[in-house]
């Protein structure tokens, strides 16, 4: 079992003929993800790698193939419209890999998607993989293993590091999600925690946070009230100089400066097992999972 993507996922790739889009589509196809369509305006009627039909618009792709999920690899200046287009076409899960989307654009994207009941993962994220079922995005499949650990992270390669540790020690994953590190992302920690908690295929959860914002603190509060499965966490940026990533005024609203210290304290207060090093994910998980008899 898994969350967000599985064998029911019928994927349309927005920007399938671009450099990144074509590279990763091949990888997704190799992983037997059900890539049912691609979109590149003007290349409608062609086929990608002689198999995947290409359409001019997402609307056509959905009408012809029943795609229910999209992944976006278009350049940043087209990414916002790609999200609008996917939502307008009725796509219910949009994974935006593209980085460099302006934050002010995202403030307009979010209510648009919410009105249409479309979930966005990203932007500027590595995507989602449910090992053995479906890969949507760029998380390297070879480091993953099918299993029962849910992984959610704001980082890219740091996530891979953690997944790698899990896999090396035989701890497979139900789903791994990179939610992206931008100030505004479509899916946050709490969304993923809620889904993992509800997923019978997930037995424990790994949460990888960073400095900046208050997403981790809110997630910690959520864990203490709503999550019964074991949760372990990591916060990157203990040594980061304060104020280099976020403006000071953010703190005025959130009442928090988003430091690693603060986030670790929130994790601990919520009973989340905090790793000091990524490698500790294995021992901490084993300990916690024994605790609840998984």
């Amino acid at each position, binding site marked *: 079992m898994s969350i967000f993507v599985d064998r029911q996922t019928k994927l349309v790739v927005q920007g399938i003929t671009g450099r990144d889009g074509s590279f990763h589509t091949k990888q997704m196809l190799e992983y037997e993800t059900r890539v049912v369509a691609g979109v590149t305006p003007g290349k409608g009627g062609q086929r990608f790698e002689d198999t995947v039909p290409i359409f001019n618009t997402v609307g056509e792709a959905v009408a012809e193939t029943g795609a229910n999920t999209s992944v976006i690899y278009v350049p940043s200046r087209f990414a916002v419209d790609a999200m609008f287009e996917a939502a307008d076409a009725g796509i219910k899960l949009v994974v935006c890999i593209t980085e460099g989307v302006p934050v002010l654009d995202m403030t307009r994207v979010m209510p648009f998607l919410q009105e249409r009941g479309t979930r966005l993962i990203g932007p500027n994220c590595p995507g989602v993989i449910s090992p053995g079922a479906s890969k949507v995005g760029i998380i390297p499949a070879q480091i993953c293993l099918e299993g029962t650990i849910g992984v959610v992270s704001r980082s890219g390669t740091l996530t891979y590091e953690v997944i790698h540790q899990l896999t090396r020690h035989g701890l497979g994953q139900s789903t791994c999600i990179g939610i992206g590190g931008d100030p505004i992302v479509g899916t946050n920690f709490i969304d993923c925690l809620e889904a993992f908690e509800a997923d019978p295929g997930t037995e424990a959860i790994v949460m990888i946070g*960073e400095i900046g914002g208050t997403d981790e603190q809110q997630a910690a509060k959520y864990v203490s009230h709503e999550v019964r499965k074991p949760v372990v966490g990591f916060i990157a940026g203990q040594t980061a100089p304060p104020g280099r990533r976020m403006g000071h005024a953010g703190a*005025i609203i*959130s009442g928090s400066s988003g430091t690693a210290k603060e986030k670790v304290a929130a994790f601990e207060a919520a009973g989340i097992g905090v790793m000091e090093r990524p490698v500790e994910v294995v021992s901490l998980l084993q300990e916690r999972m024994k605790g609840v008899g998984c």
Partner: protein
Amino acid sequence: MNLHEYQARALLKAAGIPVPDGDVATSPEEVEGVAKRMGGAVVVKAQVHAGGRGKAGGVKLAKSAGEARVHADKILGMQIKGLIVDKVLVVPAAEIASESYVGVIVDRASQRPVMMVSPAGGVDIEEVAAKTPERIFQASIDPRYGLLPHQATSLAFQLYREPQQVRQAATIMRQLYQAFLDAGASLAEINPLITTPDGSVVALDAKIVIDDNELERREDIARLRDPAAEDPAEVEAREVGLSYIKLDGNVGCCVNGAGLAMATMDLVKYYGGEPANFLDIGGSSNPHKVITALNIITRDPSVKSILFNIFGGITRCDDVANGIVTATANTKLERPIVIRLTGTNESIAVDILKKAGFEALTDMDEAVQQAVKQAREAA
């Protein structure tokens, strides 16, 4: 990207906000001339990307043009938080009847811009927020509608009672929001927004921070970048697509991905070392990026050992290995280097490195421990 005060003032002025006169000068003589033209009583303000300019002695009131020259002489060349002041803004000394704060930022939690005002202006707004949060008033902005007139008016009534001033402040807020949008800002603030003895409302100091992701489509704003005001290494890194921040330690780090970079730095600290920098070579790295990264790190005299930590995903390990080999082919590294590579094309990379005489590790903890140890031994 931070704008200088004088640049932020110009953007506000262009948006219609009343901003007092002001001229930028780079020498004491020039400051004296400007001050003379302004009638003598001026404020000389360091233009530098650092907070706490006032406390650091970078903002001085002068009663005469001569005094302005003396102040400028001290301020120009001064270091504030490691940055050298190479220009000052000269403004006429303003008579201030009241000081308020007005600012707009993007709030991560509500995923919306928020306009904030406080009648407690002219001081550090974070302190106001911490000590007297009831003196800060906010309006959440639906970005599809912008700051609505009634929102601006309602906030303005928190600052002023005089209908004329309420109208002026409401207009300024709407102009500030427009300037914020037009600049692609993540923060735009006026602190203080003052009333003068004759009752008019004027923006005395301005701060604007630009979302770097906006620069591609806003050439006019991108042109405001002042490389002279930044660390040259950070500028060089940015130009090839690296993200580099100089720190105080001695273990030079080169990592792919911001999160992994921070985790690597944390691990350096965990094992008793101190990172010399944050350096993220980004996603699809090419050998050229790696070469620049290595050059930047080796140029830093405080670096005692060099640590590569690469988790290959989109980044191919062999690209990084090639970069290291090329960069060190002609100029021998004078400091120990520890290379950890895993993931995409790992074995090809290991071969490349071995042939060139480098050792390659696959375990992150082991690599960090070695680098810390070598830095300690070299120090």
